[in-house]
């Protein structure tokens, strides 16, 4: 559905994107991860036909964004990271305006808009001026706007930025619904846990380069992200921490009020041997388990080294 080949974007002497290659199949939810200024928004702007690449090709549903921008615009719903609304329009008028801008006939819009408002939980705000909506409601309204022409692809740049936890959860639920509807979604976010729940694949971008791409589990396996073992003992926690630091497969030991967190480089067998050793040392082990590595760990692991994998 989205095919990017050797995409580069240069502003003067600054390379915003360097030879990006990316393929996102139809129906995939793709999480775009990277620090500020890494090139996420630039890539999304190019896909949204708002910017031309310096070199390379970007295609949406087979249409080149530079050669056939109108065809691309029919197929995408774009939500920028920062956006405004026309405050003097009512919610339904706002959606009617965008619907008409996508050449959707009035009769069709009259049926479509209540459904969209229901999808984004704004049915009770249909006759309210956009000015009177909260930030979260405006974000949801903007998402409804993206969907008005039933696009195949949704390009969502930081859709949950600036939202409170409740609004963020509501947004996440809507995105899950869209995923079930079979939309191809490319979504960027700083808040990695919220992405982890819904994405099929991630792409990690840093300094304009794609440093990792694929399923989260595959990337974890490729990176051999170190396990984090969570240990809790009855007593002498500080003494155990010091002893664990001398172990050959342990790279770091952190203690807090929940217990000891050990960054462990060994496999299952070495893990069993470590537990046996602690028992043999005479510590009363209350719990010993492997903490779940998440998207945040993967991101930190990738971006600290700067290596392309």
């Amino acid at each position, binding site marked *: 559905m989205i095919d990017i080949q050797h995409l580069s974007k240069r502003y003067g002497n600054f390379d915003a994107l360097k030879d990006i290659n990316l393929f996102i199949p139809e129906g995939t939810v793709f999480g775009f991860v990277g620090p500020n200024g890494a090139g996420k928004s630039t890539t999304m702007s190019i896909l949204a036909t708002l910017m031309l690449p310096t070199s390379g090709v970007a295609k949406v549903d087979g249409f080149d964004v530079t050669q056939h921008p109108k065809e691309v615009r029919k197929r995408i719903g774009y939500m*920028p990271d920062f956006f405004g609304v026309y405050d003097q*329009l009512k919610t339904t008028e706002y959606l009617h305006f965008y619907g*008409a*801008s996508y050449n959707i006939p009035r009769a069709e819009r009259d049926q479509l808009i209540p459904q969209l408002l229901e999808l984004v939980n704004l049915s009770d705000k249909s006759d309210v001026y956009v000015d009177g909506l909260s930030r979260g409601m405006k974000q949801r309204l903007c998402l409804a706007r993206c969907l008005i022409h039933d696009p195949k692809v949704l390009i969502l740049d930081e859709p949950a930025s600036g939202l409170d936890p409740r609004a963020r959860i509501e947004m996440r639920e809507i995105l899950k619904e869209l995923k079930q509807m079979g939309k191809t979604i490319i979504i960027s976010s700083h808040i990695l846990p919220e992405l982890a729940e819904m994405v099929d694949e991630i792409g990690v971008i840093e300094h304009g380069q794609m440093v990792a791409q694929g399923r989260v589990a595959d990337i974890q396996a490729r990176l051999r992200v170190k396990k984090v073992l969570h240990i809790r003992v009855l007593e002498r926690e500080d003494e155990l921490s010091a002893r664990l630091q001398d172990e050959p497969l342990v790279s770091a030991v952190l203690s807090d009020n929940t217990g000891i967190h050990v960054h462990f480089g060994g496999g299952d067998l070495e893990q069993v041997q470590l537990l046996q050793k602690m028992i043999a040392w005479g510590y009363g082990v209350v719990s010993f388990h492997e903490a779940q590595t998440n998207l945040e760990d993967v991101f930190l692991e990738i971006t600290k080294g700067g290596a392309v994998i």
Partner: protein
Amino acid sequence: MNWSRKWINPVLDKEFRLRMRTPRSAISLLAYILVLGLIALGFIYVTLYLGNNGNQPFNSSAGRMMFYVLSFAQLVLIAFMAPALTAGVISGEREKQTLSMLLTTQQSSATIILSKLFSSLSFMTLIIVATMPIYSIVFLYGGISLKQMIFIFLFYLFVMLLLGALGVLFSTLFKRTMISVIVTYGVGLCIFLMTGLIYLFAMSIVQRHQYALQPGTGTTYSWVGYILGLNPAGALISLFEPSFSKSAFLLRNGNLNSDAPIQLWQEFLLVYTVVIIAAIWISIRRIRPDAGRKFKKRGTQALSMDTGGNDPS
């Protein structure tokens, strides 16, 4: 209504709604009519009560003079109003962060630019039409034909289109509305004031040179008159008095048989029609980021590869 759906595109519809929903529009309209009405009443007061110890009758020549005064006042008000209404139409969308979403819809660049310009011009036209009752005072005393009045109003429309097109152009080129407004007013000032001053300066130099020549030598008409044709006030006077064009070009007294090379208002229309078309064309080309480079790229591709299939956006 089917006709309205056919002729009023979504951008225009939205612009009309947004413009007429704010109290600012009604206040602007009221203030404008109030200013022009005060000028008209002031003129009547000065002419009837202060002139000739209050015994001056308000005759057709006074009516004509009042029409001239109102027309110039209206021209000055248009010069102030048009940039304020148009110089923020695109940069305002950019500042409100709504432009990127508008550009990803199916509306073409031309539709967006022309709709923005048309909606601003519509509001200005509404204001101008609303001043017609003030002008009707002139008809109580005579001295002005309906045809003259229609020409003057068409001339206003053209001046509004000129300043509006320039406002939209600078609004497209500059990211900040403040800068766009300042530049539009600056260019407006050049058109309204600088052209007149340059004409007077150039005319004095050329006339001094002519008087230094032997009688019977030298030309009757000078190119200097073309400068005044670029000035809206000059063009407006030539609409009132067609002989004004002749005197604008004339260097020597006593050669009034020859006609002026061109009427000042005709030159004004010709030159600024080109400016309006250029301003609108550049705005359409430049509204989308990188559009200039895209144009070059297309040109290069066409030359080097002779490939088609470009989708005009």
